[in-house]
């Protein structure tokens, strides 16, 4: 039958098939066709009449058998049941088909159909993998290809539960979790020594067998799959699991043993904390353990983005964990602390001889307020609500907007939004009006809006109360509402954090993140907001390292994302700069603050709140970088702007004043600093900030300045206040804020003459620092130095000199040789020499100290103290002329900064008296 013929038959076929058989036969005979064509037509019509569809049946049977053939033959193994499926293929439980011996295996059917070349490579790789023989590695026993060429592997079957399930189920102690993990490291070390990289270490690939043995599955299988797929390149993808894969793996760069180290680090963090990294927001059944600084250091080192900075081998990783378990100092942590401290110390020129002040960081997060923004917020809320699809929503939005404009005109009918009416007046009026309403659909969103505004104003107490009421029973119905509520919960988290309720804050931030993930999974700007909010909460919980990591990611993302709103960008920038400055990373903090300032100034007038915000960041970076004079200048500019543009009180003024006090303290103007701190305290009370941590920092700062100024008794009282606050908030004995304050109080006790108590406290603190931070830590070095100072005040040269030798050795490892701490050490040596009656030795040391302070352009206060000490020695040697010449310029400096009872000033005053100086 050829084509023209079929076409020729078509019209006849159509007409005749409608007829009954008898008519049909008659008609065919009538047709102008040859005999062959008539026969064909008859057969076609008969076929058309037949029932069923053999074509469809045959195809369906073929398709059905297609599945069967992919599954049947796996060498000597017979499938029992399916175990699961993953990115690399499907896994079945199987047993020996011949029943020769009882052994169950896992058969893994790899995805894809390799070319002949790829099959050859795959066989080679299989040989290498079969060579791995370790009790913590599930062995590769057999392998081959199905009739159709699909590769399969037979692996040791591990009867047990996946690692994380085991951890969630049994909640092992830290020690037991580490022991499990060390066994995994042993297994990885074995594989690495056979030049096999796992490439896909993740929770699903680690099983804990019923006898408790941990087993790594699928060693090197990812490589096998890739080997099999290299033939058709456009379909080939690397096998890895997001979340566990190293950065180099995700970027398609070379994979090495360091890639496994990274994935192991992520997995360890998840075993311990229930989350892979700071940004991991999934709910986890694992109860998180509290990690100390050492363990965090180990995790950080294992998961360094740069492979070269990770542990060089699984063995090194394991050794460090073993050290930790045995309570010995850890390499990673030592490196991290030392590195940090070195930078920190190198930049804090003062503060090691005198008490140092702490910066408020977290309040910086609530730094937003301006009239424009108030309006923008109201408009945004209305716009978002209007955009919501439901009619109900829209009418509520209109009601809200009407309500707000009502409230505003009621407050100031003639001058609404003008400069004369403060934002607070407007808000108070709105709140009063709101209290009279009882329609929850209107009241709750308005409460939340007002909560934001009060938060902006720094009135945390009112904001928190409004937000709590406004969020009652909140449940988003759609995306727009979910995002709005997430913003509200972020604000709530921030306020709870300021109040010191970290757990509740974490819950709130988590809820915001969950809603964003659920309702707007693709919105990267919204994810940035979640990260920012979480970072704040981490900081509040004392985990600055995590907060910094999260903010670094967020800033990189914000820069890459053109749609990031300026407000969000500045928020992230200033928070990161503040935390970095606190951690001693002054250069990075400064660079970030300046980049932020440049961007803000390009988009906003110079008198904008964002400008003030980043000016403060820059000042703090300068302060951390050892430039207090520059910091003072910038802060005074920021304060003037803040007063003019925004608000003369509130949380921001508290922070700015505190920052200024720090700069002024660093400049040695202690009494002025104390006055500034009292002002900052007033702002704090005015803003309703009463979180334990902030108040403790504030008390500690005031105490430190008073101590520097010489008012020891009052200082000790303020330190006690700080402890009471920390106790009330349940801040533990080893918390860094508490230990720092304890250290400062002990030193003050020593200066005030409470030698025995000071000695006891400092000795205890030093033992704890050795345990917690290690011998190479800055904290340990600092405490050793404080013991030197105490021995000096107690006139105990023997103890003092031994400690001084130790301190000098420790500090040389931490600080550059030109650091002023070494000049202060010379002062101490001079004092001990004098105690032993070695006047010449004392003179030598003190001359060196004075010359050193002169040469480095030290703060006037340091130089003046050293000069006054040298003056005393010269007087003792009988050289009244030089003594006078040294003391005369020093005395006014000391008198300006310090009270008469301050020990250095008191000593100088005694010398002055003997010299007849006034």
């Amino acid at each position, binding site marked *: *039958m*050829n*084509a023209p013929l*079929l*076409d020729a*038959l*078509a019209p006849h*076929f*159509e007409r005749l*098939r409608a007829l009954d058989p008898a008519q049909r036969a008659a008609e065919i005979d009538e047709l102008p066709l040859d005999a062959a064509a008539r026969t*064909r037509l008859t*057969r*076609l*019509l*008969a*076929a*058309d009449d*037949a029932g069923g*569809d*053999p*074509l*469809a*049946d*045959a*195809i*369906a*049977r*073929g*398709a*059905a*058998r*297609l*599945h*069967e*053939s*992919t*599954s*049947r*033959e796996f060498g000597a193994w017979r499938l029992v049941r*399916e175990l699961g*499926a993953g*990115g690399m293929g*499907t896994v079945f439980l199987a047993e020996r088909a011949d029943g020769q011996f009882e052994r169950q295996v896992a058969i893994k*059917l790899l*995805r*894809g*159909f390799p070319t002949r070349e790829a099959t050859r490579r795959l066989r080679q790789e299989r040989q290498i993998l079969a060579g791995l023989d370790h009790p913590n590695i599930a062995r590769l026993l057999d392998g081959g290809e199905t*009739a*159709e060429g*699909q590769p399969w592997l037979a692996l040791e079957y591990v009867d047990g539960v996946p690692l994380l399930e085991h951890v969630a189920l049994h909640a092992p102690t830290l020690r037991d979790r580490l022991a499990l993990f060390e066994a995994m490291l042993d297994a990885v070390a074995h594989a690495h020594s056979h030049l096999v990289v796992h490439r896909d270490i993740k929770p699903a690939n680690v099983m804990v067998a019923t006898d408790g043995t941990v087993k790594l599955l699928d060693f090197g299988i990812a490589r096998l799959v890739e080997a099999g797929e290299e033939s*058709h390149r*456009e*379909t*080939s*993808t690397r*096998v890895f699991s997001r979340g566990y894969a190293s950065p180099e793996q995700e970027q398609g760069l070379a994979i090495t043993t360091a890639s496994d180290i990274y994935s192991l680090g992520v997995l360890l963090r998840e075993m311990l904390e229930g989350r892979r990294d700071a940004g991991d927001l999934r709910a986890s059944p694992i109860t998180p353990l509290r990690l100390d600084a050492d363990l965090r250091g180990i995790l950080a080192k294992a998961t360094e983005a740069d492979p070269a900075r990770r542990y060089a081998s699984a063995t090194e990783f394991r050794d460090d964990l073993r050290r930790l378990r045995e309570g010995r100092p850890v390499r990673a942590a030592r490196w991290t602390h030392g590195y940090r401290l070195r930078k920190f110390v190198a930049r804090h020129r003062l503060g090691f001889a005198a008490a140092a002040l702490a910066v408020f960081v977290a309040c910086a997060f609530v730094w937003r307020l301006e009239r424009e923004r108030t309006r923008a917020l109201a408009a945004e809320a209305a716009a978002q609500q209007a955009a919501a699809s439901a009619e109900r929503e829209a009418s509520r939005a209109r009601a809200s907007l009407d309500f707000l404009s009502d409230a505003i005109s009621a407050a100031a009918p003639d001058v609404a939004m003008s400069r004369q009416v403060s934002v607070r007046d407007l808000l108070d009026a709105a709140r009063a009006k709101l209290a009279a309403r009882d329609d929850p659909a209107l009241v709750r969103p308005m409460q939340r809006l007002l909560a934001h505004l009060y938060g902006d104003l720094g009135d945390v107490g009112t904001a928190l109360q409004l937000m709590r009421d406004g969020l009652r029973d909140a449940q988003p119905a759609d995306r727009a509402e979910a995002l709005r509520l997430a913003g509200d919960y972020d604000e709530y988290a921030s306020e709870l954090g300021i109040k010191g309720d970290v757990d509740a804050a974490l819950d709130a931030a988590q809820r915001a993140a969950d809603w964003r993930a659920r309702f707007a999974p693709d919105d990267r700007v919204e994810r940035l907001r979640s990260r920012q909010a979480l970072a704040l909460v981490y900081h509040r919980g004392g985990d600055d390292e995590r907060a910094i990591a999260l903010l670094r990611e967020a800033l990189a993302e914000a820069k890459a994302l053109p749609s990031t709103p300026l407000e969000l960008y500045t928020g992230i920038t200033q928070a990161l700069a503040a935390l970095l400055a606190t951690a001693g990373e002054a250069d990075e903090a400064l660079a970030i603050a300046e980049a932020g300032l440049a961007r803000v100034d390009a988009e906003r007038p110079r008198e904008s709140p964002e400008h003030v915000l980043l000016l403060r960041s820059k000042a703090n970076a300068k302060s951390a970088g050892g430039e207090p004079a520059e910091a003072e200048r910038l802060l005074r500019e920021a304060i003037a702007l803040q007063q003019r543009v925004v608000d003369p009180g509130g949380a921001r003024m508290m922070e700015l004043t505190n920052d200024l006090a720090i700069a002024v303290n660093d400049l040695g103007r202690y009494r002025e600093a104390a006055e500034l701190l009292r002002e900052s305290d007033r702002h704090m009370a005015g803003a309703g900030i009463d979180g334990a941590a902030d108040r403790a920092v504030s008390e500690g700062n005031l105490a430190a300045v008073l101590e520097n100024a010489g008012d020891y008794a009052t200082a000790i009282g303020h330190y006690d206040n700080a402890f009471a606050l920390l106790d009330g908030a349940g801040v533990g004995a080893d918390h860094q804020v508490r230990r720092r304050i304890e250290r400062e109080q002990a030193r003050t006790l020593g200066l005030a003459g409470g030698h025995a108590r000071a000695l006891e406290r400092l000795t205890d603190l030093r033992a704890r620092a050795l345990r917690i931070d290690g011998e190479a830590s800055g904290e340990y070095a600092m405490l050793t130095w404080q013991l030197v100072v105490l021995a000096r005040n107690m006139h105990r040269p023997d103890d003092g000199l031994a400690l001084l030798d130790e301190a000098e050795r420790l500090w040389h490892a931490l600080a550059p040789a030109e650091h002023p701490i070494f000049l202060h050490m010379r002062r101490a040596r001079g004092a001990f020499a004098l105690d032993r009656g070695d006047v010449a030795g004392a003179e030598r040391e003190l001359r060196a100290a004075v010359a050193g302070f002169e040469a480095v352009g030290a703060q006037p206060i340091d130089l003046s103290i050293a000069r006054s000490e040298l003056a005393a020695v010269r007087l003792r040697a009988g050289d009244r002329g030089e003594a006078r010449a040294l003391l005369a310029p020093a005395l006014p400096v000391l008198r300006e900064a310090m009270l008469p009872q301050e020990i250095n000033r008191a000593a100088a005053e005694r010398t002055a008296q003997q010299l007849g100086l006034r």
Partner: protein
Amino acid sequence: MAEAPADHEVTRLIAAWREGDEGAREALVERVYANVRAIAAQSLRQMPGATLSATDLAHEALIRLLGSDAAWSDRRHFFHVAAQATRQILVDAARQRLASKRGGGAEKVELDAALGVAANDGDAELVRIDDALRDLQQSDARRAQMIELVYFGGLSRIEVAQALQVSEGTVDRDLRLARAWLRAALEA
């Protein structure tokens, strides 16, 4: 994992093919081929022993490779390829099974029986259908393609009409005739 970049790649290949690039067509066929196999394997995983029709295979291949909301022009071109690939896979597999059976795989029959699958001669029939269809292609390409689109590609008569840019009536008539022709050829 491979889906995201693949989507884009398939659209590009289809565009290139529409512009006459035969290499793109080859690449596309290869891609569809791999995908249909993967789908078949996966359906086994999800429900061992279940069957999946050729139509399901092609449809799922389409959705996986193109997404459910791909432009019609892309879908139309894709269906030609998907139908051909599905046909090729099914027939190749049938041929392979026939060959291995001829190789005297007693064990294989035993295995079939053990798994409760009756051995049948559907494979031979499938191979004959393929041969007949190839004959029809020689003489009557349009009607052969209709068969392919409907039986291996899973298209409805309306979709076939759109794909081949003919009326639905023409599709009905052509299909009736082609089906009858094939059936007659198989019974011969």
